C-alpha cells in the first residue's frame, strides 16, 4: 500500500469532499407547490389550460411548470439535459415538421392544439404545414406567391389566426417596412385571397381582430427622420374602412377583438392595478375597467404577469414569499372566473414567477 | 598486471604462466585457478582468460577434465622445453639489443659473468 500512498490520499480527499458536496446538494430542499383555489372551479377548461412558469433562483436553479390542478413539472435540470431539451413548441412533433419550423424564414401559430407554420424561402412560393397535436400526420400545402407579394424584397409571412377554414396571414417586407398585406388562405379548396385593407400602403399593420369578415387593425406610420410614429385604428369590411379616432390616443399593451366581434378589448399595463378598456364598435363608447391586484415586488423584480386572450384577462402576481396569486377575469363582465394561490412550502423570495403559459 | 597493448593479451597471459612453470612456482600437477578467478586476478576479460587456457591446453602445458580445476602438466619434458624456450627467448632479445650497439662477443660474455655473479651475491645477502 505504501506504493500508492499519495494516490490513495488524494483519492480519499476527492471522494470525501465531493461526497460532502453531494450531501449538501441533497440537503437543499426543493420547492413543493400546492394550489389553493380561492374562487371558481379549477376543472373549467380555461383554467386547465393555464401553466405558471416559476423559477427557483436560490442555490439550485430549477424551473417549474405548475398547473392549477397541482401537477408540477420540473424542467431544467443540468447542463446536459439543458442541451438536449427540445424547445417548448417542438415537443412531440414529427421530425420533418420540426425541421420545417426551425428554419429562419418560417413563423408558427398555436391555436386549439394545432400548430400552423408558414414561410417562403424565395418570395415566389409559399409553403404551409400544419400538425394536429394528437395525430402524427402533417398537412403540407404549397401555393404560388401572389403577384403583389412577390414584388416585396424580403417577405415574412405571419400566420395570424384561423377562423373556420380560413387561415389569415399577414405579409410584411421586414427589410424596407413598406406596407403590410393581408391574405386569407382557404384550407379546404386551397385558394389564396387578398384582403384589401384601406389606408395601409407604406405602413406597418397590426391585426387586432377578425370576425365574420370584419377586420379591426392598427396602422403605424414612422415619420421620416424621427422615431415617433402615428398610430391609427380602423374597422374594415375588406372594401371600406371606418377610422376609430377615439382609440388612437389609447396606449395599450394588448388589444384584441372580442369573440363575438362586437367589442375591442385593450389591456393597459401598469404595475399595481390591472386596468383595461372595452370599446363597443357599434356604439363607439368605451368603458374603463380596473381591478386592484395584491402585489409584492422587491429586488427580485419579477412580480407580475398579465395576458389577454379570448376575452379573458389572466393575471399572475407574487403576493408573498413563495405565494403566487393567479386570477382569470372576464374582460367584458369584469367577473372573476377563477382565483387561486400557488403556494411553495419553502415560503422564500427566491421562488419567482417568470410567466404564464396558455395553450 | 600491466599489459603491452601491441601484443595479444591472451599470449601475455600464457607467457605469465610459462614464467611460473619455468621458475617452478607452479609445480607439476599443481592446480591452477579457474578461468573466472584468473580473469579477476589479472584484471582481464573472461574471454581472454578462456582463450589463454585453450592455448595452454593446445601447448599441453595444462590438462583440464570436466568441472575439475585445470592442473599443470606432469610431463617433465614439457616443463624442460618451457625453460629452454624461455631462456632462448630472453637471450635472443638480449643479443638483438647488444648487436644493435656492436659490442664484440668477448666483452659481452665477461660483462654477463660479472653482472650475473654480483646479482646472485646480492640475492643471498637480502
Amino acid at each position, binding site marked *: 500500500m505504501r506504493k500508492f500512498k499519495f494516490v490513495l490520499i488524494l483519492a480519499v480527499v476527492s471522494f470525501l469532499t465531493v461526497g460532502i458536496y453531494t450531501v449538501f446538494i441533497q440537503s437543499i430542499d426543493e420547492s413543493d407547490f400546492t394550489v389553493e383555489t380561492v374562487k371558481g372551479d379549477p376543472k373549467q377548461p380555461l383554467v386547465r389550460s393555464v401553466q405558471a412558469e416559476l423559477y427557483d433562483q436560490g442555490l439550485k436553479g430549477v424551473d417549474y411548470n405548475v398547473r392549477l390542478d397541482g401537477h408540477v413539472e420540473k424542467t431544467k435540470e443540468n447542463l446536459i439535459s439543458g442541451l438536449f431539451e427540445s424547445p417548448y413548441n417542438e415537443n412531440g412533433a414529427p421530425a420533418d415538421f420540426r425541421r420545417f419550423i426551425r428554419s429562419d424564414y418560417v413563423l408558427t401559430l398555436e391555436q386549439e392544439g394545432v400548430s400552423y407554420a408558414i414561410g417562403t424561402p424565395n418570395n415566389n412560393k409559399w409553403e404551409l404545414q400544419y400538425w394536429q397535436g394528437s395525430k402524427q400526420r402533417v398537412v403540407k400545402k404549397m401555393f404560388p406567391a401572389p403577384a403583389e407579394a412577390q414584388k416585396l424584397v424580403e417577405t415574412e409571412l405571419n400566420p395570424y389566426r384561423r377562423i373556420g377554414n380560413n387561415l389569415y396571414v399577414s405579409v410584411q417586407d421586414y427589410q424596407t417596412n413598406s406596407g403590410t398585406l393581408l391574405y386569407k388562405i382557404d384550407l379546404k379548396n386551397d385558394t389564396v385571397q387578398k384582403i384589401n385593407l384601406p389606408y395601409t400602403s407604406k405602413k406597418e399593420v397590426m391585426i387586432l381582430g377578425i370576425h365574420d369578415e370584419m377586420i379591426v387593425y392598427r396602422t403605424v406610420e414612422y415619420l421620416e427622420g424621427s422615431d415617433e410614429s402615428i398610430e391609427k385604428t380602423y374597422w374594415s369590411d375588406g372594401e371600406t374602412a371606418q377610422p376609430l379616432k377615439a382609440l388612437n390616443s389609447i396606449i395599450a399593451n394588448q388589444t384584441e377583438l372580442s369573440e363575438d366581434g362586437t367589442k375591442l378589448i385593450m389591456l393597459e399595463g401598469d404595475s399595481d392595478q390591472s386596468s383595461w378598456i372595452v370599446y363597443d364598435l357599434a356604439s363607439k363608447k368605451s368603458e374603463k375597467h380596473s381591478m386592484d391586484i395584491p402585489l409584492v415586488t422587491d429586488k427580485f423584480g419579477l412580480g407580475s404577469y398579465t395576458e389577454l386572450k379570448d376575452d379573458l384577462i389572466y393575471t399572475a402576481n407574487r403576493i408573498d414569499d413563495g405565494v403566487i396569486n393567479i386570477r382569470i377575469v372576464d374582460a367584458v363582465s369584469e367577473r372573476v372566473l377563477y382565483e387561486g394561490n400557488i403556494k411553495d412550502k419553502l415560503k422564500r423570495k427566491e421562488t419567482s414567477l417568470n410567466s404564464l403559459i396558455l395553450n | 598486471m600491466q599489459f603491452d597493448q601491441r601484443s595479444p593479451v591472451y599470449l601475455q597471459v600464457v607467457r605469465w604462466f610459462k614464467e611460473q612453470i619455468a621458475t617452478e612456482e607452479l609445480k607439476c600437477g599443481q592446480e591452477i585457478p579457474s578461468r573466472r578467478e584468473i580473469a579477476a586476478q589479472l*584484471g582481464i576479460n573472461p*574471454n581472454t582468460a578462456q582463450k589463454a587456457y585453450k592455448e595452454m591446453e593446445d601447448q599441453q602445458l595444462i590438462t583440464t577434465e570436466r568441472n575439475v580445476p585445470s592442473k599443470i602438466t606432469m610431463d617433465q619434458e614439457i616443463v624442460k622445453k618451457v625453460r629452454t624456450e624461455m631462456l632462448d627467448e630472453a637471450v635472443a632479445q638480449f643479443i638483438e639489443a647488444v648487436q644493435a650497439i656492436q659490442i664484440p662477443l668477448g666483452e659481452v660474455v665477461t660483462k654477463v659473468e660479472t653482472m650475473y655473479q654480483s646479482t646472485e651475491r646480492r640475492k643471498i645477502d637480502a
Partner: protein
Amino acid sequence: MLEVHGLKKRYGRKKSILEGVSFSVRPDSITCLIGLNGEGKSTILKAIMGLVPVDAGTVLVDGEVSREKIAFVPDLQTMPGYMTIGDALTYMGDYYPDWNSKVAEELMGLFKLLTTDKILELSKGNQAKFSLVLGFALDRQYLLLDEPFAGIDLFTKEQIAWIFSSHYMEGRGILMTTHEIIEIEHLIDRVVFLQDGRIIDEHDTEEMREVYGKSVQDRMREVYQR
C-alpha cells in the same frame, strides 16, 4: 546477436548525425564504439534504446525487434532527485520483472555504496558506479554503457574497471562508447570506429595485435588521420 542496420538520423535540415550506421554486437564480448566528441556515439545508443526517433534503420536482437534483452546505462542521472539509492533500487524492483536484487546487493557492497545516500548528493564517481549497478542488476543479455568512465578520477576508474573482468560479465554482450581508451584497452574484444555518422572501420582487438601488432590506440591514429 544484437544487430544495428542502416541507422539514419538528421537534426533539422542541414546537420545529419547518422548516415546509415550498421554494426553488430556478439553476446559474451565487449564491443567498444569509438568516435571523437560529438560524432553521435551516444545518439546511436539512444537510438537502439528507442530514446531518440530515427529517420531510418532497424535494431534486431536475435532476429526480433524488441528491447527486452537490452539494458542501458546512460551517462547522466535518471532517477528523480529526491530519491535515495534505496528508493531507486525498490523502484527498479517495482517496474522491472527481470530485476535481480541479489546481484544489486552484491554490487552495492563491492562498490561500497550506501542505500541511504541521496542520489543527487553522490560524487561523480559514485553516480557512475550506481548507474552501473542499475544496468548490471538487470538479467539482460545485452548492456549498453554510455561513456562509463567519462570525467572520473583514475582511482574510481580502476574500481569500476574490475567489473569487466568479473563473473558478472559472463553471457553478456557489452556495447560501450568512449573516446579515451587507454586504461581499458586490454579488456575490449572488438572495436568499431565511427566518423561523420558512418562506421569507417571495425576489427577484433586480439587479432589486430596478433596479426599487425597494433594496439587500438595505433589504429585510432591511423583511422582518424585518413
